[in-house]
């Protein structure tokens, strides 16, 4: 893909770990409220904080925010939060499936698992982003996203509270763009505008 060109993303996944919450709140608050492209957040955290996270994000945007449920169809104009303690997988019919198999990279949900499964189904119409974290989860996932012609984005390490996770993806050369929070929001807004 030529620099600056934006693909036809139908689905955006954002993975984050330690230190990603602040960044997410920042990004979400800058999203165009007419955002049509569904965004799914896959975050490492304690399972008990599920509804808390949706509630917190809701205060920053007019876009509908909800925890995604097993067998739910991914719909336009939604920000979904993947539930804690389950992996999230994607089906060909546009629904998601939850999975409680072994942790991957000490994590459930694992960002690798989510990115790889989504790449399987959405291929070139998938955009995945990796935010702050202290873990190497997400790098293999981004590699597969790129293999399947999707777009891979890392949060600029200097903008990340914990730089390790996005830096690891950058060092492994599996990233198309490196963007700070504001640029990530702008990128998504542009994606949405071009899709419309």
């Amino acid at each position: 893909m030529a620099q600056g060109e934006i693909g036809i993303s139908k689905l955006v996944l954002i993975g984050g770990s330690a230190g990603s919450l602040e960044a997410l709140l920042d990004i979400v608050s800058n999203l165009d409220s007419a955002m049509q492209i569904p965004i799914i957040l896959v975050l490492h955290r304690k399972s008990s904080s599920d509804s808390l996270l949706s509630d917190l994000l809701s205060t920053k945007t007019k876009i509908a925010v909800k925890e995604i449920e097993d067998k739910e169809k991914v719909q336009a104009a939604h920000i979904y939060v993947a539930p804690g303690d389950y992996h999230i997988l994607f089906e060909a019919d546009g629904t998601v499936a939850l999975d409680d198999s072994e942790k991957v990279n000490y994590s459930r949900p694992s960002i690798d698992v989510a990115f790889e499964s989504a790449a399987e189904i959405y291929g070139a119409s998938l955009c995945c982003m990796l935010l702050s974290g202290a873990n190497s989860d997400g790098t293999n996932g981004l590699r597969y996203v790129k293999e399947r012609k999707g777009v891979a984005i890392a949060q600029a390490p200097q903008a990340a509270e914990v730089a390790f996770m996005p830096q690891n993806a950058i060092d492994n050369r599996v990233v198309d763009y490196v963007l700070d929070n504001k640029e990530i929001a702008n990128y998504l807004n542009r994606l949405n505008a071009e899709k419309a």
Partner: protein
Amino acid sequence: MRTEIHITEEQLQLLLNSLWDLYGYDLNNYSKASLTRRVTRLMALDRFPSFAELLYKVKSDKHYLKHLIEEITVNVTEMFRDPPFYKALRNLVLPEIASKPFIRIWHAGCATGEEVFSMAILLHECNLLNKSLLYATDINPDVVEKAKKGIFPISQMKEYSENYMASGGTGDFSQYYTAKYDHVIFNKSLRERMIYSTHNLVSDSSFNEFQLVICRNVLIYFDKDLQSRVFELFDNSIEQLGYLALGAKETLKFSGIYPKYKQVEKEKIWRKEK
């Protein structure tokens, strides 16, 4: 760097067809996303250089089948997983069925048995164990054999003990097992109230009536059609005023049997009222 071989939808279908044609295992209504991932994982684990070699192995070696089924279905479980769930069983469900002369409980999809032992401990502490029978079933013969033994790694006991206390456990968790080297074996008094067997939720029918059916984190691996068939099977296996308990992210809400059931507070537990 991993070089995983990702299988295609067509390849998965070939594998499923073989499992059905050769062995009568019907995994067609399992989540395709989950199966795709598990088969990819299995191919990496068993070092198959290509999908064709896996398929050949499946077709030519019937002993490989058990291993394959065990690996492509998910058998992750723990004791007192999700402590508030067990607290709800202890405080809201067991008191309601305590007056029964005899208590039958079915753990459908019991995997390696951790939840069955948790339940037996709960029953023991409510003074109900001696009049209870725990039927525990799974599609995998090997995990059922494992479950039956009641032997678990000692390394897990710290976590399980914490879960137990968080679930409202009234005793000392270590009284329920004897440690030996790196494993523990749970007491015979718990094991002798359990009946283990293989049972396939896809093809086998109801085999008894229960006061409580527990099936947690099994239905998420099924598609909606199979889910609704299994709900019917459970409904046929639950007596009037009996209970159905599901996993943290599963619900009865969109099923055909929903109108007959009432949710127990905000728990993933429903009571059959019609």
